[in-house]
């Protein structure tokens, strides 16, 4: 069983929901990335989504744009991010690592070469933001063949025929985008998400995570009641930006612990 499947199976048994923090690899600096991953796990993260920075993050709001710029400025490349994953794996063989980024750095490396490198680095899943299912058949097949889960976004506007298409290709979990707009946008309509997730479950048989617009323990809690996993990104990246280099590990630990506690509260 894959690490992602094992993680969700264990959580189901404990009647708990997954907490999936996202941050951009290489931000605030190269040396802090792997310690941040470990700190997030220690604070209660179940899966780590590691952002691969791209020069043109079209689907991201200002917070993650700035974070990508810092990461690129620090010299982060797709190769570096794979190395971070491999280093994390040396001391953690249990927590899944999912890479999230844009198509071009992957195509630049070559899809096959990337799929092999991802498996060797101990990466468990890959989400390519600008690869809708139609354009990702090749990469999804290669990833799947190498035991790495292709992970897909589903939007509020995704029609049933597409949901079926995504369900066929997706492994691990699907990522439901709870808002129209870019990452980091405000306000969340929990009732709307509840209805949509109920519809999704008819076709999607793997766990459903919800992300975009989750800002605090309260919104995380609300989402955890209806989804299998809560993804929190921009809020953490904002905290990384605000914290000094010395305080970033502590501040992120506190924030992730708070959200974990809110999700787990009986």
């Amino acid at each position, binding site marked *: 069983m894959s690490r992602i499947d094992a993680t969700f199976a264990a959580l189901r048994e404990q009647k708990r929901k997954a907490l999936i923090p996202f941050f951009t690899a290489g931000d605030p600096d190269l040396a802090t990335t792997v310690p941040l991953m470990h700190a997030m796990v220690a604070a209660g993260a179940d899966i780590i989504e590691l952002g691969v920075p*791209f*020069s*043109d*993050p*079209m*689907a991201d*709001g*200002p917070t993650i*744009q*700035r974070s990508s*710029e810092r990461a*690129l400025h620090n010299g982060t*490349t*797709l*190769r570096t991010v794979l190395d971070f994953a491999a280093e994390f794996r040396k001391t953690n063989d249990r927590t899944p690592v999912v890479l999230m980024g*844009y*198509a*071009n*750095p*992957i*195509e*630049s*490396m070559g899809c096959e070469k990337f799929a092999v490198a991802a498996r060797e680095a101990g990466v468990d899943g890959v989400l390519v*933001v*600008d*690869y*809708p299912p*139609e*354009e990702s058949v090749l990469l999804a097949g290669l990833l799947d063949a190498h035991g790495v889960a292709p992970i*897909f*976004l*589903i*939007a509020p*506007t*995704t*029609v049933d025929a*597409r949901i079926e298409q995504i369900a066929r290709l997706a492994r691990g979990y699907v990522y439901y*985008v709870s808002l*129209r*707009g*870019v990452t980091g*946008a405000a306000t969340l309509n929990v009732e709307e998400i509840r209805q949509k997730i109920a519809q999704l479950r008819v076709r999607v048989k793997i766990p459903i995570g919800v992300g975009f617009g989750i800002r605090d323990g309260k919104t995380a809690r609300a989402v955890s009641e209806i989804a299998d996993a809560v993804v929190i990104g921009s809020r953490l990246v904002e905290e990384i930006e605000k914290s000094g280099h010395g305080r970033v590990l502590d501040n992120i630990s506190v924030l992730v612990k708070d959200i974990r506690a809110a999700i787990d509260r009986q």
Partner: protein
Amino acid sequence: MQMGDLPDDRGHFGPYGGVFVAETLIEALDELKAAYARYREDPEFCAEFAYELKHYVGRPSPVYHARRWSEHFGGAQVYLKREDLNHTGAHKINNTVGQALLARRLGKKRVIAETGAGQHGVATATIAARYGMECVVYMGAEDIKRQAQNVYRMKLLGASVVPVESGSKTLKDALNEAMRDWVTNVDSTFYIIGTVAGPHPYPMMVRDFQSVIGRESIEQMQELAGCQPDAVLACVGGGSNAMGIFHPYIPQKNVRLIGVEAAGLGLESGKHSATLCAGRPGVLHGNRTYLIQDDNGQIIETHSISAGLDYPGVGPEHAWLKDSGRAEYVAITDDEALAAFHNLCRLEGIIPALESSHALAYASKIAPHMKKDQILLVNLSGRGDKDMHTVAEKSGITF
């Protein structure tokens, strides 16, 4: 509107084009695709488009035999397709009229656009004023500094110009920001992309709206010269004016198609925008095409004296025309373009845009080596009024 063979149903020109966007934008693109498929064949839509092009834009734009300039070369006869005489001074308006008509039929009351030099922004602001639509133009903060006049022009026309501070603060970042606006406001907003790039159906749709240039040229060349040119030349940034004049000529296999990119300070300097000459394929702004990128797949900053060519991508159909060998792509440096600019001013009394000056410069390279009965047709895509500041600065003059 004329239907080409390509792209396929999902927007592919061979391996290029396609739809590379986040799932959140798919529905909007599907809606646009369906709307365009319906209206491109709709007689009423086509008639309204033709009426606007004639009475508002001032089409057809003439083809002009540049006799003195041709004599100066002592070789091929050079003809100019005068897109510079269009309302707003460039070919950009053809496309904004088409997309704005589509926006109206979709009931969208707000249009957005990205702009580099400001020409597409001005053309969008113009048509938004004409139809009473709200208009927001995204423009890189760096470009805003360089193009103060066009920014003011857009504001006069009632548009708001939003400075983009992310990335390199230029055209590519403005496009990212416009996409972000669109995905957030998709119910009320129509995104008018200015070139033959972006996700399907944009490359096809913009090409179709711009193809009026080539269709007119075929008729006008027959009338004026009694035959078609040996070669058609056009500058290529994103590539909309080139696609517009090339597309109707694609089936005429004996007409060479030559796209002229910006070599900036020289291809070897690394400071250029010659995507097809010096880039490699990748994915950016919703399509697969040639890109100027580093070894890690990050997009790198480009350079050209003409802001309109200063873009790290290129329309996917050009990528296909290059690989298939139907079109050739060459590059002209800043200095060569400037020399052609001055030449045309002095010999023909026409002040060309710096973008178009790249195509003129390549014509002046090959014309002397051709026979006197051979013909070059250059798409003079825009007028140079907007470039006074840049050219004066290069000559050491301040106003």
